[in-house]
């Protein structure tokens, strides 16, 4: 069999556009009939449980991750009750059971459990699966004109590693002594000698790491190999670039954490002492282990992952924001090439900044100076990206719809998060700020009103794509404004608390600090009320989400009049497995809005051939067929 055979099959698609469309339709009907004959149950499992269609896997990821997002948030709601009113009895706290909250008063060790699991769930089970697993899976193949991911079965496997990982984490709440309680960073030696829940945590993490590795290989191969004809590197939507760099971070940064996890598992199960120094005394008795280990080894391995992980959290968000800003300003993104360069450089630099989390460990001033320098350097590409996004607004005719509101809010919120990071990156100022609420405020500004707002923007923006329905604008605006105000009410006071020296892990929110007592008492109840208000303002979103799926008005295929392939070249929701009736041929870059060379509409889809029939809703296929005829 000669290699040209596959090419020819590809070409046949191009030359017989209409015949192909009929064939596809016929195959689809055939498939439906077959499915009916095979019996409902089997096809249900194949289609909805163990699906290999990237779109359905994306939806699976998205739904699961949103559930974890809500769960992780609710853990924090309970913690905020304790922080706002320490030692008070709350009837809702009783759901934790007598062992954790006797009489509705949260115990310190239960507080630690909630804190550790809030961090773990939010980072590894909510944001990353939502940003990469859901948005990446659903959109990347559509945006590059691919029929699916490069390895559809591997894609299914990565979801089915993620879900068990999450379930193991949830099950760990039932472990003897409760779930993990050593923070999301699981620093030894405390985590080495913690209760059984920590072992569950490690096993859960190994599942999640495996899932990320399989996913990242799949994304990189898909983006390199499956780009449609004409989709050159510099014509990729910015979102795809962001996912591409993110996947490299996941691929190369996660294995060291896997190694660290294996070593900690050995410490806990096989009684090795990788992280246990000699002569460690626990509860008054010398620990009976060989010793000679190094707790700092864990920190190095952990942060070698966890710093790139920060960029895993933020890059897909920036990609989403880029798409939405270009679409809603009706003009090209400002500085596309700088954005691409910055995102690549950011990815590279993120591997050489990890020890700025460890200034206080006594590594020595030379190493501190090195990591302080790289940390200052990495802020440059971040600023380039934010500046380019901000400059994109200049001179645009901005449409203030719900996705755009979230995208616009992202810019200052991420700005605050990023700029407050600078004093933490400098060793001298970090000595004062380390492990205070200032740190919490900093990274939550990046991740909560930053990344999570970008996730909401993405959900509102691609909802008509995925469901074919419109979402309610009014409820969306209530959700946005309520969340925007409330979320600042939670995180803004944290900077003041941190500057006053309030440590981040205090069970009573800082009341025991004489010098910080006043600010803790003055701000904590307000922050807790803001957290519950934020929760209340998620109700319009949840209502809107399900109501629109069930009863929403039908949306046209290219609902936002966008240029990228996922909107312009296929229906909403896209055709079954295979995405496109005819794989489009890409003619130009991704953001040709208000192009002077094209006056029929204010957007010029990536695959549209000027002079061909206009690219109306779902008419992308016609255009692609026209291209094929032209080329013939």
């Amino acid at each position, binding site marked *: 069999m000669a290699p040209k055979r596959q090419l020819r*099959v590809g070409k046949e698609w191009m030359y017989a556009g209409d015949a192909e469309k009929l064939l596809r339709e016929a195959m689809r009907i055939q498939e439906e009939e077959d499915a009916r004959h095979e019996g409902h149950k089997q096809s249900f499992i194949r289609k909805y449980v163990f699906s290999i269609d990237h779109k359905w896997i994306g939806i699976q990821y998205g739904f699961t991750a949103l559930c974890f997002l809500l769960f992780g948030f609710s853990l924090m709601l309970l913690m905020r009750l304790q922080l706002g009113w320490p030692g008070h009895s709350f009837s809702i706290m009783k759901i934790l059971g007598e062992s954790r909250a006797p009489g509705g008063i949260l115990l310190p060790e239960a507080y630690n459990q909630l804190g550790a699991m809030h961090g773990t769930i939010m980072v590894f089970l909510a944001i990353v699966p939502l940003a990469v697993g859901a948005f990446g899976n659903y959109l990347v193949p559509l945006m590059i004109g691919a029929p699916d991911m490069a390895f559809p079965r*591997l894609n299914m496997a990565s979801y089915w590693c993620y879900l068990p990982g999450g379930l193991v984490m949830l099950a760990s709440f039932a472990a003897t002594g409760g779930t993990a309680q050593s923070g999301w960073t699981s620093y030894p030696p405390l985590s080495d000698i913690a209760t059984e829940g920590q072992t569950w945590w490690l096993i859960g993490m190994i599942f999640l790491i495996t899932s990320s590795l399989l996913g990242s290989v799949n994304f990189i*191969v898909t983006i390199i190999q499956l780009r449609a004809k004409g989709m050159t590197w510099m014509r990729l939507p910015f979102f795809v670039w962001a996912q591409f760099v993110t996947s490299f971070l996941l691929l190369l940064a996660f294995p060291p954490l896997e190694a*660290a996890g294996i070593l900690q598992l050995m410490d806990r199960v096989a009684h090795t002492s990788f992280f246990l120094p000699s002569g460690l005394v626990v509860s008054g008795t010398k620990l009976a282990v*060989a010793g000679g280990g*190094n707790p700092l080894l864990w920190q190095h*391995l952990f942060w070698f992952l966890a710093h790139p992980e920060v960029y895993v959290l933020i890059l897909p968000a920036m990609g989403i924001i880029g798409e939405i800003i270009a679409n809603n300003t009706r003009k090209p993104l400002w500085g596309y090439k700088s954005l691409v360069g910055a995102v690549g450089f950011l990815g590279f630099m993120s591997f050489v900044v990890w020890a700025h989390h460890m200034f206080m460990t006594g590594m020595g001033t030379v190493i501190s100076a090195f990591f302080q320098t790289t940390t200052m350097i990495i802020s440059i590409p971040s600023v380039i990206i934010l500046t380019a996004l901000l400059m994109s607004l200049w001179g645009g005719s901005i449409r203030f719809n719900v996705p755009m509101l979230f995208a616009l809010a992202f810019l200052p919120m991420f700005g605050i998060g990023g700029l407050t990071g600078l004093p933490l990156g400098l060793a001298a100022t970090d000595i004062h700020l380390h492990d205070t609420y200032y740190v919490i405020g900093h990274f939550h500004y990046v991740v909560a009103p930053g990344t999570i707002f970008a996730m909401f923007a993405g959900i509102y923006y691609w909802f008509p794509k995925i469901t074919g329905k419109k979402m309610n604008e009014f409820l969306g605006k209530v959700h946005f404004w309520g969340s925007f105000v409330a979320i600042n009410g939670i995180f803004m006071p944290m900077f003041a608390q941190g500057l006053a020296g309030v440590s981040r892990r205090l069970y009573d929110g800082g009341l025991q600090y004489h010098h910080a007592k006043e600010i803790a008492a003055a701000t904590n109840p307000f922050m807790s009320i803001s957290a519950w208000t934020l929760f209340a303002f998620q109700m319009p979103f949840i209502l809107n989400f399900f109501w629109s799926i069930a009863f929403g008005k039908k949306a046209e295929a290219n609902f936002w009049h966008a240029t990228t392939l996922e909107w312009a070249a296929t229906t909403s929701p896209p055709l079954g497995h295979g995405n496109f009736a005819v794989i489009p041929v890409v003619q130009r870059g991704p953001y040709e809005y208000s192009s002077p060379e094209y006056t029929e509409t204010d957007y010029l889809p990536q695959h549209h051939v000027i002079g061909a029939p206009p690219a109306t809703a779902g008419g992308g296929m016609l255009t692609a067929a026209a291209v094929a005829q032209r080329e013939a």
Partner: protein
Amino acid sequence: MDAHAHAAEHEIEIPHAVYPRPDTGLYNGKLGIWLFLASEVMLFGALFSSYILLRTGSMNWPRGYTFLNIPLATANTFILIASSVTVVLAWANLRLGNLKLGRIFITITIACALLFLVNKGIEYHHEFVEGRSPSTNNFMALYFTLTGLHGLHVIGGIVVFAYFAGPGAKMWHTDRNRYTNRIEIAGLYWHFVDLVWIFLFPTLYLL
């Protein structure tokens, strides 16, 4: 493209699944395995770094050559190198269209891998009899963790090759090129497993 792709399952065809994309010169699986191996390099790289850090921080590091079985480990090294040769021969014969010889070489590869594990088992048994376990000291902890993780990789390779020599070989009759590619990919993985051992052997047994 072939009967396989359309058989039974209504699957769509993924471009460049079997034949290389002209501008990258790679088919999907080959790029995928190289990326996977890059992540494996990071995994073992982190473990070797841990070895260096723990050893340099230690006052009296045990020397592996004073009590480990060097002749057996040397034999194991040559067994794994031989298996890397046979896996290339398997692939070369499949490329030449000779399934029978290809399968024989895959089987020899599996036999080598099993022999490696038997030798490793003898070594493990000896250590436990002598009273050395992972909790003895950090050298033994690293010894068991690293060789154990490597052993898991060997077992993974055996499972994959056993499948391709057995039920997986059916694909030869429906999609010969894809089957040959799979052996190539598995072979690349196998070379990596071999390479890890070539680093482990001096690190643990000789230094």
